[in-house]
């Protein structure tokens, strides 16, 4: 029983990361209809930047905001410089440009910081408490920071004029323009915010998976799975989906482990995590492409 609780807890902690990444993906998808395949590598790059700042001796709670600001600027620049000219380009061009970005971030991180695996210190104090057998302090920290971040974003989009303008720009660009919203800058801001959210995910997950240029590939896959499960057009759904796939991932490994202990037959375990994500992605896409909370898109012909 305790083991099951442990698995659920660590599933929720991973789920927090997936939720952040899924949210970043959805924010870009809702406003521009693009799936950002470079999201994971951008988050990885931000984690490296944070590591560099820590290495230079800055305390974590200075390094993190600095990293977030850096990611925000990078996100805005990417939208303004690279994606702006592609607004009416065919889908293939957009996908290829994202793949190009992925390659650039991946290889730049390798070139600047080398491919050796680096430990990343956890920013949260190590203390013991009643439930410490079930959940570790870093896991709690992951969940708290992620949920706090989500709450902030929710308030930003719900209660500030700027958030309202951004939602308007994403929902209906033409009408938004008519009421005087600068839609182009709203899209760039959205990109910046998505990059910021992604950078927090990267920094939080770095102590768990260790720092190296390949660290985000599998995590991004789960981020995709989360976004799809929740519905790629629904931000709230993406967050829920992230937590769902996080728990699901650990449950599958746990059940596979139980099965092996009971029958001696190895079916599935930690080595098949990516395959599980692939199966989730394909199942959702085939059975319910709009996800659990997404709206069904009807195409007018």
């Amino acid at each position, binding site marked *: 029983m305790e083991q099951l609780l442990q698995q659920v807890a660590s599933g929720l902690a991973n789920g927090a990361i997936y939720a952040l990444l899924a949210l970043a993906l959805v924010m870009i998808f809702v406003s521009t209809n693009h*799936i950002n395949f470079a999201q994971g590598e951008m988050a990885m790059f931000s984690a490296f930047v944070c590591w560099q700042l820590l290495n230079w001796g800055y305390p974590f709670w200075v390094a993190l905001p600095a990293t977030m600001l850096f990611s925000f600027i990078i996100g805005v620049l990417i939208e303004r410089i690279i994606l702006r000219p592609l607004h009416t380009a065919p889908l*293939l*061009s957009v996908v*290829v440009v994202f793949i*190009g970005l992925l390659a*650039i971030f991946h*290889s730049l991180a390798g070139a600047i910081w080398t491919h050796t695996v680096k430990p990343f210190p956890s920013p949260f104090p190590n203390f013991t408490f009643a439930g410490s057998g079930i959940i570790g302090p870093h896991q709690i920290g992951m969940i708290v920071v992620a949920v706090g971040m989500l709450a902030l974003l929710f308030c930003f989009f719900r209660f500030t004029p700027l958030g309202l303008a951004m939602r308007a720009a994403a929902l209906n660009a033409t009408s938004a323009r008519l009421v005087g919203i600068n839609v182009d800058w709203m899209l760039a801001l959205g990109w910046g915010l998505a990059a910021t959210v992604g950078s927090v995910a990267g920094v939080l997950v770095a102590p768990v998976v260790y720092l190296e240029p390949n660290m985000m590939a599998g995590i991004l896959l789960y981020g995709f799975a989360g976004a799809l499960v929740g519905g790629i057009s629904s931000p709230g759904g993406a967050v829920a989906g992230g937590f769902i796939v996080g728990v699901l991932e650990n449950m599958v490994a746990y059940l596979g482990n139980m099965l092996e202990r009971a029958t001696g037959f190895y079916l599935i375990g930690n080595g*098949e995590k*990516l395959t599980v994500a692939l199966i989730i992605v394909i199942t959702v896409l085939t059975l319910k492409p709009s996800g659990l909370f997404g709206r069904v898109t009807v195409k007018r012909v």
Partner: protein
Amino acid sequence: MATTMTTETPANGGAAAETVPLSGLRRPVSKWIWLGVIFAALLPLIGGQTGLISNFYFLQLSLMIVYSIAVLGLNLLIGFNGQISLGHGAFFAVGAYVTAILIDRYEMHYLATLPPAMFVCFVIGYLFGRPALRLEGHYLALATFALAIAVPQFLKYRHFEPFTHGVQGINIFKPDPPFGMPLSPDQWLYLVVLACAIVMFIVARNIVQSRMGRAMMAIRDQPLAADTMGINSARTKSITFGISALYVGLAGALHAIIFEFVSPDSFRFELSIAILVGAVIGGIATLSGAVIGGFFVQFIEKYADALTKWVTSTVHLPIHLEPWTIYGIVLIVLMYTMPMGIAGGLASLWRKIRPPG
């Protein structure tokens, strides 16, 4: 190395200048292409026997042709049917593994392993294409992206280990040329690969110019109109996916034979991307673009390292750039300047500067 290239490029540029958008129309194969093919086939006799071209370069040429076949397969899917796949490295891996397992475990003749490899890839591609039909554009890209990332891990699955040898991979040996031909194994395999490529290019050309090919292009351009004209778009799309996987699977099988080794980590995400990049750079929706694309993939793999070192030292960068940085930049710049790829870009350039009349 550039021999097959030089004959292909002008032939395409000239042919595309006459009938631009309807690449499905029947037109004769230019005699320059045939001359180039004959020259390429005689290369082991001319260059190999005189020692002008070493076995190493024959291996490079073979790899280039292999990637051309893979790029051609992806071209059929993306360029002619409008479905985007980021995961064709998976089918490359399946083809390579089928061949390697059949040679290693069942001691089959290496040529006899090619049809099963192609068949398995066709079936898997068809089955993957079937549910993927409901997916359009982004969603298909997403599903295939997931496929590409999951493949190496899938190949290490514990119950496949008796066949795949897990992370260690499978070693196979290069076959000797038959009938005591005076060729080295590399030269012989070069001829085998070239023959396969010629057959596959002719088949692709015939597919594109057939009823099936027109249906593929109709679905790409006007899905709704294609449906109302009575084209079974579900069937056409999944068969195209299967054919495309078959091409890439054959390329994988040939790669396993000439490379003498397969392992899960040779089929990482980068491979899928390399094939996609080859297709985009060569030019989608042109068959000859696949040759340029295959050349580019192999060239990048082989010489990008030297190129980046040269760039790093000339510009005096403080860090050692990696090839993929340049890869990414080339890709993005190309999407702005020549969205139809190098072959398409040259063709449209030719149309612009061609003297009138």
